[in-house]
């Protein structure tokens, strides 16, 4: 069967090759372990290398797949096939100038395949040297990334911000009473070793590509997230409720806060040059989402007693990643993204509410996570944490579903427009949220009738009232479920029974003002 597969793969590769002028010969695979010959072919200026010989030289394996080949080097597997300029490693693409070909029944790939594969899988670089006809493998040398450090302690939380001169790949490893930020590329350290007079952070040490954060006590728990523009890694540390001693990576977890819905992030969709959908009469989605979000923030602050944060409070561009990063940064308990819909069906109308669909998009991600999970046990530098962050919302899907249901039901009750229901979709703005999160489509701006309504205060207020009730309802249901507040007494007893002084009082929170986005978290258009 394996022979048949190999034959099939070779036939397909042979069929896919279009042969022009070519030269061929022996080249040298130059690795830190030594030199080794392999065969190459050059046609139309492109160098193709014998994949089997190069993989063997790298200590890996190559095997035919149903329609191509799978290559494993250093524990990472990539694949390439005929007629395709793209190989794949995990869910990442390796771009090649031209597709692979078959020569003498053997697969030959553009040398750039190994450049892309090794860079992603083994932090090595591959480069073709035409002068010596060598494929040179060496450690990946990226420009050193400058790191700036700031440390602050606010209300018992120690916040470390590592500001990077360029985006960088990294992982975070939990060690006994320490955390290690391990970069995949060289970093330029601001200092070697620095002690801190901080209740949670003892010292910080830069060594090679690592930053070690030594904590003051074993029960100091950490939390981390990323921000962009400029790229930053933010780590929060606090005493108590230490994370479970998971060897390997720091798993994103909701920090231990006072239970209940305390902070709500409202996300007005689009902004700046990203106008969103435009109605038949020119109304822009970004303007109406901002108007509704501002009203909603004021309403929630007054009626729900929660801290409310807007991801934007003006007509500016905020990246999708940054919106959820902001919610994570504020340790929000709820995230609601407000949008207007558009469809090619001109009379489409009504509201609909989404929460994240991972099953539609994450088959490969789950496989990658499983692979990384296994690898993490033995390889502390694995990408497990990054993958988990990427799927952070997965842990909150049940609550997100309940939240979305409350929103949709209140929207239905408030309006006579069509109920389009609760749906799931792989929406980017929901992926990284570490709290229950939903996206509401208030109405169809593409429908001229709804477009006209959407710009009126009366309709916006109606929507805001419905969304406020939805948040209040979800908050009450959630806090009842976790035992923070008592469920309402049966109707037969409520009118007659006197107030029970032993019952815990419902949290009385003073109305709070919406919190605008700090300027430092904005992306200007």
């Amino acid at each position, binding site marked *: 069967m394996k022979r048949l597969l190999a034959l099939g793969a070779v036939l*397909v590769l*042979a*069929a*896919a*090759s*279009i*042969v*022009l*002028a*070519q*030269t*061929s*010969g022996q080249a040298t695979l130059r690795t830190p372990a030594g030199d080794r010959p392999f065969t190459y*072919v050059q046609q139309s200026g492109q160098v193709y290398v014998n994949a089997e010989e190069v993989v063997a030289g790298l200590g890996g394996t190559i095997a035919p797949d149903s*329609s191509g080949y*799978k290559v494993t080097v250093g524990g990472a597997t990539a*694949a*390439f096939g005929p*007629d*395709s*300029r*793209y*190989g*794949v490693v995990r*869910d990442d*693409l390796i771009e090649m100038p031209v597709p692979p*070909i*078959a*020569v*003498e029944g053997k697969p030959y790939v553009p040398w750039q395949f190994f450049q892309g594969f090794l860079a992603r899988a083994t932090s090595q670089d591959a480069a073709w040297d035409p002068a010596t006809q060598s494929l040179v493998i060496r450690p990946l040398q990226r420009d050193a990334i400058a790191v700036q450090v700031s440390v602050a302690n606010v209300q018992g939380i120690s916040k470390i911000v590592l500001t990077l001169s360029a985006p960088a790949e990294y992982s975070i490893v939990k060690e006994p009473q320490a955390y290690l930020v391990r970069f995949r590329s060289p970093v330029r350290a601001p200092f070697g070793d620095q002690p801190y007079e901080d209740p949670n952070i003892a010292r910080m040490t830069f060594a090679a590509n690592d930053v070690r954060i030594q904590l003051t006590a074993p029960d100091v728990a950490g939390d981390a997230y990323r921000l962009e523009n400029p790229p930053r890694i933010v780590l929060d540390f606090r005493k108590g409720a230490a994370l479970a001693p998971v060897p390997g990576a720091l798993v994103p977890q909701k920090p231990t806060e006072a239970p209940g819905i305390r902070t709500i992030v409202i996300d007005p*969709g*689009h902004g700046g*040059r*990203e106008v*969103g*959908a435009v109605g038949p009469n020119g109304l822009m*989605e970004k303007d109406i989402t901002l108007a509704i979000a501002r009203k909603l923030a004021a309403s929630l602050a007054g009626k729900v007693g929660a801290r409310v944060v807007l991801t934007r409070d003006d007509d500016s561009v905020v990246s999708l990643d940054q919106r959820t990063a902001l919610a994570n940064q504020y340790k929000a308990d709820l995230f609601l993204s407000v*949008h207007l*819909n*558009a*469809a*090619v*069906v001109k009379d*489409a109308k009504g509201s*609909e509410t989404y929460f994240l669909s991972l*099953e*539609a*998009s994450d*088959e*490969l991600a789950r496989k990658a996570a499983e692979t990384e999970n296994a690898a993490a046990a033995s390889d502390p530098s694995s990408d497990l944490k990054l993958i988990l962050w*990427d799927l952070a919302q997965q842990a909150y899907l049940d609550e997100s579903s309940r939240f979305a249901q409350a929103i949709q039901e209140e929207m239905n009750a408030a309006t006579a427009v069509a109920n389009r229901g609760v749906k799931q*979709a*792989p*929406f*980017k*703005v929901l*992926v990284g949220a570490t709290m229950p999160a939903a996206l509401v*489509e208030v109405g*169809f701006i*593409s429908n001229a009738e709804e477009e006209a309504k959407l710009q009126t205060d009366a309709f916006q207020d109606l929507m805001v009232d419905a969304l406020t009730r939805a948040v209040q309802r979800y908050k009450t249901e959630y806090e009842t479920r976790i035992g923070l507040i008592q469920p309402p007494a049966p109707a037969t007893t409520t009118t007659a029974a006197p107030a029970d002084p032993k019952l815990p009082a419902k949290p009385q929170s003073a109305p709070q003002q919406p919190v605008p986005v700090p300027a430092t978290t904005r992306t200007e258009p």
Partner: protein
Amino acid sequence: MLAAVALLAAVACGKKKETPANLNAANRVAVRMVRLYYESPQMLLVAEPRNIALPESPAAAIPVVARELIKGPATAASLRLFPADTVVRGAYLLPGGTVVVDLGGPTLQQGWGTGSHQELMAAYSLVQTLSANFADARRVRILVNGSPAETLAGHVSLARSLTPMPVLVEPKSR
């Protein structure tokens, strides 16, 4: 195989050789009925059968079908989802069932301003069309202008491959 034989000879000689382009399965064409998915008045994906000339090789046929989809529906019974100026720059079937579709065109490049419903349906019309017509196509990774893109219009994540969502398809077209 002609190519392989030609290359074998070339390798053996170790000299520059001129060999003709091979005739292969990608060049053999037959008329075949395909199912292209557009939006119905019920706002779900509905299949439009269409006879088109297709290469026998799936690898060569996939970009043809993707381009046929982007042309838009042939009847008024269904509606075009992608912007009219969208182009399919390339489409490739990778081992393991991932199809990479590279889209381009002025609207996608400059920023497509539409709502999440149309964006969702557009992305999944492509996913549904390719998976319905090619058994090996199990998921679709969408690129824009040759590079990974965050979204098409600010909503649907293109960071990972998309697999078919039957809930978006009319029952009769599943």
